[in-house]
């Protein structure tokens, strides 16, 4: 008797919890902000109730874009429009895209644009470039001064295990007069899904046909098995691994350049389409950005290997992934914020871009982004 009562109680309790969990799920789905922001969101709702003005916009995704949002844009936009409360978090480009699609965040930040399949499944999603970023190839070669020169083809052969030592004839051929040690190469990749992997593998695919037909490109790819290769987590992990391993080579986002150079790493001059070896200087990145032609209306395009004498070959757009169907005050707030963000006098000003090593959108790209922002609305 007693035992059966207990079972009934337990079963009732279980049903209660299930209902509770289901309820929570429904509330979260209906709410537009992530769980972490809920406390602040309450406060915002409160203000909205009394003042009727405050709107909260949430952003998540790319760890590369996160410093721009959290250190630069959010404090700055606070004075531009105090009625809008911005919440940013760093989760990864894939998460940014998927949460923007699911509607759990307002802005998904991504280093990579959405794939055709994803766009056709979710026709209302916009890929709006906000800024230009770049990536450098870094190495740990003690005693080698200056910048070694590398081509995409040599890099593809290194990451396929076909070139195993630094004094390989193929590397020596593009570095005439430079003495390279007989040191084993340790290729370093990103283990987590990453916009950096997307850029790097696009450069390899553009310059090496066996890479194009093999691993291809993506935020994580099927790396050819190379016994000496290691994969590290995040740009931080790659820089630490490179710094700790003599003979290592890897790809690192431009915002980590100063940090990595301070740790004794060198960075390579890469061969561009014109055949010149160029460094990732602001001027060379700007040259590549200005050389872009034929950008489609939806702006989903690779900026790898642009023409021009000085163009640095690995640059990309940093995207805001946004659903064009937005209602009322939120839609208006989102529109105004994005318009401010790409404005050369607003968010795209050098004051905000330089600290994170980004470059503003070229003047011919900005109208395209503006036209996409115009589509946001009911």
């Amino acid at each position: 008797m007693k035992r059966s009562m207990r079972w009934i109680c337990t079963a009732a309790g279980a049903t209660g919890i299930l209902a509770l969990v289901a309820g929570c799920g429904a509330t979260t789905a209906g709410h537009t902000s992530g769980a972490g922001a809920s406390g602040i969101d309450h406060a915002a709702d409160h203000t909205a109730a009394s003042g009727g003005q405050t709107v909260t916009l949430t952003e998540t995704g790319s760890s590369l874009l996160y410093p721009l949002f959290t250190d630069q844009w959010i404090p700055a936009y606070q004075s531009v429009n105090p009625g809008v409360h911005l919440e940013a978090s760093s989760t990864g480009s894939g998460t940014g895209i998927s949460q923007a699609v699911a509607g759990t965040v307002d802005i998904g930040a991504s280093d990579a644009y959405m794939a055709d399949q994803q766009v056709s499944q979710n026709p209302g999603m916009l890929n709006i470039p906000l800024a230009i970023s770049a990536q450098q190839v870094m190495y740990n070669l003690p005693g080698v001064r200056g910048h070694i020169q590398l081509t995409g083809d040599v890099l593809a052969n290194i990451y396929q295990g076909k070139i195993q030592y630094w004094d390989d004839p193929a590397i020596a051929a593009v570095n005439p007069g430079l003495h390279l040690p007989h040191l084993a190469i340790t290729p370093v990749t990103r283990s987590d899904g990453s916009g950096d992997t997307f850029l790097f593998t696009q450069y390899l695919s553009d310059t090496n046909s066996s890479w194009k037909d093999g691993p291809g490109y993506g935020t994580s790819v099927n790396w050819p098995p190379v016994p000496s290769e290691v994969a590290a987590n995040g740009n931080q992990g790659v820089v630490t691994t490179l710094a700790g391993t003599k003979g290592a080579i890897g790809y690192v986002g431009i915002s980590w350049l100063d940090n990595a150079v301070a740790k004794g790493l060198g960075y390579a001059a890469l061969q561009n389409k014109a055949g010149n070896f160029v460094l990732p200087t602001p001027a060379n990145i700007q040259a590549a950005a200005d050389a872009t032609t034929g950008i489609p209306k939806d702006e989903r395009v690779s900026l790898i290997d642009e023409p021009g004498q000085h163009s640095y070959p690995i640059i990309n757009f940093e995207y805001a992934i946004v659903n064009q169907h937005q209602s009322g005050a939120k839609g208006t707030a989102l529109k105004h914020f994005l318009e401010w963000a790409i404005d050369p006098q607003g968010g795209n000003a050098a004051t905000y871009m330089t600290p994170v090593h980004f470059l503003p959108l070229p003047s011919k790209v900005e109208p395209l982004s503006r036209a996409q922002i115009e589509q946001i609305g009911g």
Partner: protein
Amino acid sequence: MAAGIAASSPVVFLAGIVTIVVIQAIPSIRFSGWHFLTSLTWNIGNVYGGLEHEHGVTAASGASFGSRVFIVGTVASSVIALLMAVPVSLLTAVILAYRTRGVVRTILSTLVELLAGIPSVVIGLWGMTVLTPWISTQLGPLLSRAGGVIPYLRGPVGTGMGLLASGCVLAIMVVPIITATTRDLLLQVPTLYREGGVGLGMTDWEVVRHICFPCIREGFIGAVALGFGRAMGETMAVLMVSGNAVNLLPQNLYSPISTMAAFIADQLDSALTDASKMAVHALSELALLLMILTVATNLAARLLVSSGRWRQRRTGVDAP
């Protein structure tokens, strides 16, 4: 009623999690079949290309999912961790149980338990900045020179990130678990038995070896299995020191590896960009596999620990 809710919550949560993981894994089970357990290649396919249809499910073109590298990495790193942790834990437990008392025992026991409380990311950071360079430059070359006898010790040593480093950080994490459980088991061995041994003229070590160990054997195996379960499920620290190899089995003790838990944490973000969602399903199947392994290990551990206790009760002597 409130008590009923509280009491049933673990069951409900477990059932909920298992259900979700199983449902998420079903498309991947249909897509890969047994191939999932045997294949070495994990390739989410070209997510920027087309889709392919197979066995009634859709995946990105060129996709192929095999978990053997991760199963081998998980089991091998956990076994290496146990090889290091078991002797250390056993001897520490003997010292804590029989060689110390009062304040000293309390302090030492607390220190061992505090070790269990260090966040794994801290141990991972230590592993990345201190341990792996040391393996790469000192320990690895040393073991490699002795490797003429044992084949897997032979170089190349590489970056130090890999099987050995993962085993070391895991060992640090399982030592407190095994030590604490073993110490409690040793304290349950009746004093009368030990006094009998001493009375027969046994040395301290002989008492431990011939009287205490046989008493706690099942419980100790259970404690080791608990540690094994913990090591297999550990994510962050391994992620930082394992080298995260894919598509390649470890060649020697220093080779980069990947474990199931670390790989799931690493790959989820990319998997979310797969329009066919098959990459997420495949990670769910990997999670299901990991869950089956760890639950089975923990279950076996608990059965062994409790049967050890039961045997002591049956002998009719209460714990002191």
